[in-house]
């Protein structure tokens, strides 16, 4: 079956941005059905998903193996309701094929607040949400992957397969196994559950005692999939150019995966270890083919900390020599200590973002954010000299050991930055915005055991910040309290939360990550009906407690995380992996640990 766009015309004319739902992008592969039809699903809008690099890499790895990989994004409410009303199932963009007719749907989980959108998409596709309701029937396999998959437990009742780690390493192998066994047979599950990076929630049983996890039964260890050489890894040489402007409408290359720094709150900094840089020549080639095939005039050099890329200067030189004239380079995620006028010049932006994360040096040491005030000021000054006139500062509140003094220091940083701006006469007025989000403890970080500050504590902290931030003209914003709590609950949740998720979805909760869409009452009712207390999930976890994600092995040892936690409480900085190996557990796979970094 194929969904006919002409029949959807009255609906398309009624909705916002209909080109989200029509496909036909330049650069989208000319798809045909094959022995394995996969649809890459993204639980957010088209313009958000089209900017995501991960899903393009996964789709490419499936296509390269001779299979089919289509795309689908969450429709906004207007289109979703229209589809339901007309009885038209959610369809893929390329083949216009109903999702229910695919062999596998793979959802990319970029953050916890997209979980209800996964259920929304399944529902719009006419696919039963619970795995138990699909058992023995001819529905596609429901898979998830991406950063949140390192603790997929809240979704355990809904999904068949979880891809953990580097998806492109293993997903096509799973596809091949599916074809070999003629579907999702017992033999298929036996085979794929032995692969690194594949977790099947049905094959692991969780036993609780007194509300806490007593033990795991069945498959009790799942190792993440790991690509050691990114230069040889799959990477698309062309992107589908989105029909309507996407949030990051430019070509993207991934200069490296992983981060040398190990900031203790940062999940990405641990789960993407070890650091694997791509070669400057590989990257230059990739950037040139993307620009040629997309028509973009900007290339973004993505990674968790691009300033730490060992060959950044060489890479920038090579890119400038090889890319067509007029193509700009964008370097997001530059750390203040790596901010260098050489790098910033290309961007020609007005606003610069720094993330000191904590106001005081003491607290920055606690979180292992190895950045000093002098470095921030030096970076800001060189940016001002280049013509930047706006600074965005990212902080967190509710960090372990945080006191009111730590928060009042934010005012000092702002005052210093203002002082640096006033050192010389400048044309424009300086704009500073301070964004202070609530700290959320995440699995596989040294802070995975920490309690999240309560709503009352956060409100008190917000008041302290507001009262002490006296520098004029500073625009202060913070995250919504309930949203932060919900994210914290789902991030460290167990499979008992599947019930809450289902209830929340039935109460109409979707697009939870959007301030204006968050349905707080719907969630509160869901927790109530499921007789589940959010505090059970935001509380401090005992160090000897079995954590819901303990059966997953991302390579970083628990011993290392514990020692990092200890160092946090004594205010000791660990420093970058480039200086010396810290023994996180991935030494065998780490080029930096072997001293092979250029």
């Amino acid at each position, binding site marked *: 079956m194929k969904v006919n*766009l*002409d029949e959807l*015309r009255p609906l*398309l*004319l009624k909705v916002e*941005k*209909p*080109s989200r*739902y*029509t*496909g*036909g*992008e*330049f650069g989208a592969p000319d798809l045909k059905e094959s022995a394995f039809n996969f649809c890459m699903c993204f639980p957010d809008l088209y313009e958000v998903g089209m900017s995501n690099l991960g899903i393009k890499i996964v789709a490419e790895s499936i296509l390269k193996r001779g299979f089919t990989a289509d795309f689908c994004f969450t429709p906004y409410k207007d289109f979703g309701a229209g589809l339901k009303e007309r009885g038209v199932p959610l369809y893929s963009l390329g083949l216009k094929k109903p999702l229910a007719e695919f062999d596998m749907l793979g959802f990319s989980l970029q953050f916890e607040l997209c979980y209800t959108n996964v259920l929304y998409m399944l529902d719009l596709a006419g696919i039963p949400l619970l795995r138990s309701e699909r058992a023995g029937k001819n529905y596609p396999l429901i898979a998830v992957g991406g950063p949140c998959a390192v603790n997929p437990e809240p979704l355990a009742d809904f999904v068949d397969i979880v891809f953990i780690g580097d998806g492109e390493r293993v997903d096509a192998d799973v596809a091949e196994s599916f074809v070999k066994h003629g579907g999702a047979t017992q033999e298929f599950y036996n085979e794929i559950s032995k692969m690194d990076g594949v977790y099947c929630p049905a094959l692991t049983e969780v036993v609780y005692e007194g509300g806490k996890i007593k033990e795991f039964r069945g498959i009790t260890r799942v190792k993440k999939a790991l690509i050691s050489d990114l230069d040889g890894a799959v990477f698309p040489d062309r992107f589908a*150019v989105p*029909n*309507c*402007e996407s949030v990051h409408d430019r070509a993207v290359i991934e200069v490296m995966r992983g981060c040398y720094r190990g900031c203790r709150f940062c999940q990405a900094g641990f789960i993407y270890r070890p650091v694997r840089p791509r070669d400057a020549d590989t990257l230059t080639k990739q950037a040139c083919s993307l620009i*040629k*095939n*997309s*028509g*973009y*005039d900007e290339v973004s050099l993505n990674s968790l900390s691009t300033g730490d890329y060992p060959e950044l200067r060489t890479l920038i030189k090579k890119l400038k020599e090889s890319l067509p004239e007029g193509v700009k380079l964008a370097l997001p995620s530059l750390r203040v200590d790596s901010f260098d006028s050489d790098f910033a010049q290309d961007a020609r932006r007005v606003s610069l973002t720094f993330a000191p994360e904590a106001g005081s040096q003491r607290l920055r040491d606690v979180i292992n954010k190895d950045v000093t005030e002098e470095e921030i000021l030096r970076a800001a000054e060189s940016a001002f000299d280049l013509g930047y006139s706006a600074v965005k500062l990212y902080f967190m509140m509710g960090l372990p050991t945080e006191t009111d003094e730590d928060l009042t220091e934010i005012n000092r940083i702002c005052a210093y930055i203002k002082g640096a701006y006033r050192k010389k006469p400048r044309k424009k007025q300086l704009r500073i915005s301070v964004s202070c989000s609530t700290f959320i403890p995440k699995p596989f970080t040294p802070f995975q055991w920490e309690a999240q500050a309560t709503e009352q504590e956060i409100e008190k902290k917000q008041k302290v910040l507001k009262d002490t931030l006296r520098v004029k003209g500073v625009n202060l914003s913070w995250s919504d309290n309930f949203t932060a709590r919900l994210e914290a609950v789902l991030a460290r949740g167990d499979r008992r939360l599947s019930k809450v998720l289902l209830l929340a979805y039935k109460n109409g909760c979707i697009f939870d990550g959007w301030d204006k869409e968050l349905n707080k009452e719907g969630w509160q009712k869901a927790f109530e009906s499921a007789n589940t207390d959010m505090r059970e999930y935001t509380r401090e976890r005992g160090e000897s407690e079995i954590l819901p994600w303990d059966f997953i092995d991302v390579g970083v040892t628990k011993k290392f995380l514990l020692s990092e936690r200890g160092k946090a409480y004594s205010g000791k900085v660990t420093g970058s992996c480039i200086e010396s190996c810290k023994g996180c557990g991935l030494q065998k796979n780490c080029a930096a640990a072997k001293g092979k970094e250029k």
Partner: protein
Amino acid sequence: MIAFKYTKTDGAEYLSHLDLLRHIDRTLKRAGIKVKTSEGFNPHPKIFMNSPLGLGIKSIAEYCAVDCFFSGDFKEAFNANSPCGVKCLDFKEVSNNPNYAYAIKSCQYSAEGLTSFDPNAILNKSNIAATDGRGREIDLRERICGLEFADGKLYFTLLCGEKNLRPDFFCEYLEGLFGGKAQNVIKLQAFGENVF
């Protein structure tokens, strides 16, 4: 300068005017066709399109002019690099900007699905008062240039530019009067200087 005629069909009818401009710019870049840019503080490519087509209306008669250096087969180069439904039909060298947004005075459309009626019932009226999408009082009649039924389709020509009348708005008016439901509304041709 190259002037070209192109389509907006097969899903491309849902592209907004601004998105379409971006796609034409990128298509030309991918094709290796160097477009001159305006001078000044914020240079932009010299691409000049005809007036925006209403969202969702298909067309096989869109016009655009680009200030560029290119000697090869423009149509072939463009079509190899353009998104689905945005395809060049014809092109020609022009020495000056034809300024299609002003040059095109009226356009002919076709629609299926409307109940048949005598076109003179409309054409013989001297005035048809209506309120347009923005709430303004307008006279529809002066904006209707032609109207006829052939092979089960309604062919109609409406003014463009200052006294523009949207074909879907006009069809809705006809539906209200005579019944039926307009389907497959397509812009067939444009009238004015330098169209081809």
